[in-house]
Each structure stands twice: as C-alpha cells, then as structure tokens.
C-alpha cells in the first residue's frame, strides 16, 4: 500500500497540489480522477520520484517502478526493439530481454516493426512502443499517464488486458490516469481516487 499524506506542490507560486492525501491500493487499478490541469501528471511524477520538490510524505514506494509518460519518450537513434530493451533491468541477459521485448511488441501488433526507427512510426505506433516498453519492465509499481491516446477501441482493450494480466501475474500496484470512460467502465477491480483542488 502506498500512502500520500498532506502533499503540497507548487510551480512558480501557483499551487498545483494542495493538501492531497490518498491511499493507493495493491492488486487494484487505482484510477486518478480529476479535471484537466488538476495535477494528475504532477502527482505521478512525485510518486515515481522524478520530482522530489514537494512537502508532505509519500511512503510505501516499491523499488522497481515503470512509468508510461504522457509523451512517448522514444530514443530517436534506436529501433523499436532496442527502445523496449533499453529500459529492461541490466540483470536480465540479452536473450531474456529480447524475448520480453518481442512478447509485448507482438501483443501490440508491432511484430513487423522491430527494426523500425521512431521517426518512421505513426503516432499510434509510437504510443504502442512506449506502452510495450512500460509493460515489459518487471515493475512492482506501474504508472500509466493517458495510455490510450491515439489508439483505436480494439487496441485499447488489448492494452487494458495486458495491464490487467500484469496486475494478476506480477502482483503489481497500478496507478492509471485516463479520461477514457469506456475503458474505465471495462475495469472491474478498481479504486477511483478523486483529486479536486
């Protein structure tokens, strides 16, 4: 269980998060809900440890975190397969990394794009590579910021099923930021957390 207590975060005198407290439950999809600009991405940045400038306490953060950012953040000089393998733990041997990367790329319909460079991918394909990278990483905590942007309904379901299989098989804690109501309705085991400033 991850606990956030009395979190305050401001950017240039503007409060982004003000006295936010919440409990992130294990074995559930924790959905962060709130209007646009309410600080959902900021919250994920604080939980992931990318942003350390805040007041309040965050406890229970596991060691291995995977984060699907709102932007794809793909390495421009490396192909799809290398991009997914780049963030996999160094402790895994190359063959294992290759197997993991291919598993998720195949599941997301990118089996013909292993050698494709990011600039040759469409927006939707690049998003899928970023999703494959975040799901392939064996993490205890998975942070997903608008994962379904640019995907069709069929792919959205595939992605959600992959996320849920990670929840069941890897004993993950999942935090999801999404406005996609159809997908949110699709998730059975969820914990909806509202942020309102």
């Amino acid at each position, binding site marked *: 269980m991850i606990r956030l207590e009395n979190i305050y975060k401001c950017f240039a005198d503007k409060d982004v998060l003000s006295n936010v407290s919440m409990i992130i439950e294990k074995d559930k999809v924790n959905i962060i809900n709130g209007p646009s600009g309410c600080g959902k991405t900021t919250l994920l940045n604080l939980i*992931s*440890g*990318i942003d350390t400038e805040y007041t309040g306490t965050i406890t229970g953060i596991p060691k291995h*975190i*995977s*984060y699907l*950012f709102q*932007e794809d*953040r793909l*390495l*421009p*000089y*490396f*192909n799809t397969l290398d991009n997914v393998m*780049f*963030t*996999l*733990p*160094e402790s895994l041997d190359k063959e294992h990394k290759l197997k993991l990367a291919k598993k998720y790329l195949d599941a997301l319909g990118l089996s013909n794009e292993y*050698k*494709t*460079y990011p*600039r*040759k991918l469409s927006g939707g394909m690049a998003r899928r590579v970023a999703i494959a990278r975040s799901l392939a*990483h064996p993490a205890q905590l998975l942070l997903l910021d608008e994962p379904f942007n640019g995907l069709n309904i069929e792919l959205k379901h595939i992605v959600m099923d992959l996320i849920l299989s990670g929840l069941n098989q890897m004993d993950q804690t999942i935090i999801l930021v999404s406005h996609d109501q159809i997908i949110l309705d699709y998730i059975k085991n969820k914990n909806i957390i509202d942020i309102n400033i």
Partner: protein
Amino acid sequence: MKNFTTTNKKKVFAIVIWIGIWQIISLIVNQPLFLPSPIQTIVSLIELGKTTTFYISVGATLLRVLTGLLTAIILGIAFGLLSTKTHALQIFFEPVVSTIKSIPVMSFIILALLYLKSSYVPVLVCILLCFPVIYTNTQKGILSIDKKLIELAHLYKVSKVKIFTHIKLPAIMPYLLSAVLISIGFSWKSVVTAEVLSAPLHSIGYNLYTTKLYLDTQSLFAWTLIIVILSIIIEKIANNLYQNSKWHINGDNS
C-alpha cells in the same frame, strides 16, 4: 538511386563548366605567370609527381594536419564536456576560448616561431584554430540532449555507460561531425599558412614559398590543387564514417 546519379552528374557538369571558364580566361590573359591554364596546372602536377620530394612534402604536411586535427578534436571534446559540468567551469574557460577565436592566425604563427621548432609550429597553429570550433559544438551538442530521455533512463536505473552511448553520444554526434568537417578545411589552411612562414624543409608550405621566390605560378596552382584534393578526400572519409555509423539516422533503415 536515380536521384543520386542525377545529382552527381550535375556536380560533375558544374565542375566541368568552371574548369572551362578557367581555361577561357587563361586563354584571354595568355600569361601563364599570372594565370596558368588547367592543362598547364595538370602538366605541372604530373611533373611534381615524378619527384620524391613531392611525396615527402605531401606526407609531412598530411601528418601535421592529422596530428593537429586529432589533438584539437580530443582537447575540444574533453574541455567541451568539462565546461558543461558546472557553470563556473564554463565561465572560467570562456575568456580563453574567446581570445583564441579572435587572435589572428599570423600572431599565433609569429609567437609560436619563438618557442617551437619550425616543423611543430603548423601543428600548434592548427590545434589553436580548430579547438574552439570543436569545443563550442561539443557544448551545443550536450545542451541539445533531451532531458526527458535522461529522466526516463534514471527512472529505470539505466547504467551511466548506456545513458552515454544511447542518449548523450547520439545527440552530440551531429554537432561534432559538423565541427570536424569545418575543422578539416581550417586545418589545411592553417597548417599550410604556418608552413609558408615557418618553412620546415619537408612541407607543402615550403614548396609554395619557393614557387613565390621563382615566380613559378604553375607549380603554385599544382600545389594548391593537391591541398584542395586532399582536403576533400579527408572530408569525404569523415562524412562517410559518420553516415555509416550507428549514430546517423539513415532514411532507409526501417
């Protein structure tokens, strides 16, 4: 492939046109002392090629150019990287780099002649001229690194070596290559200029100096042609190395 061939044909055609213009002007002037024709220049080059002095001079100058250029590249990258570590270091190096940039080549040469053997002067001048270009571009390359990719790598605990080879180096490489290409031209000009003044026995510059003494304009053109050809060859090699390296995003690799 078709476009590639067409572009090359156009380039060859342009060169032929300019050589034609050169030939016509030299015929109008009709004074080889002032303007030798392309044919006279080639004949002079063939004559020079028959002597061993020619090869020794070209080899010695080439060695100076490569030594100066490589030293400037190593120092430029090292200090460029160092200067981006802290703002204080950047401020500390800046006056020196700005001064080197603005000092005329002649001042360097005359000063270096006081301290060094004549054969080393061109190398030092080459280093001083190329260093600021490499230094500045290394800095620009480092500043162009995508911070969000570094953030991603840190989150996933990617090793420092991998961060360098996968994120930093590819971002720096295009800037570095353009600096190296500019420096190749600089290095030839600076080495030969310094050789003319310092006159080491085996050098293209010394041979250029003797063409002035004997008013041998044909040989002057022949030596100059050699400098241009060698400079272009080195530039092409550097460019090909980069194009075939993994750091270059090739339009066809998909």
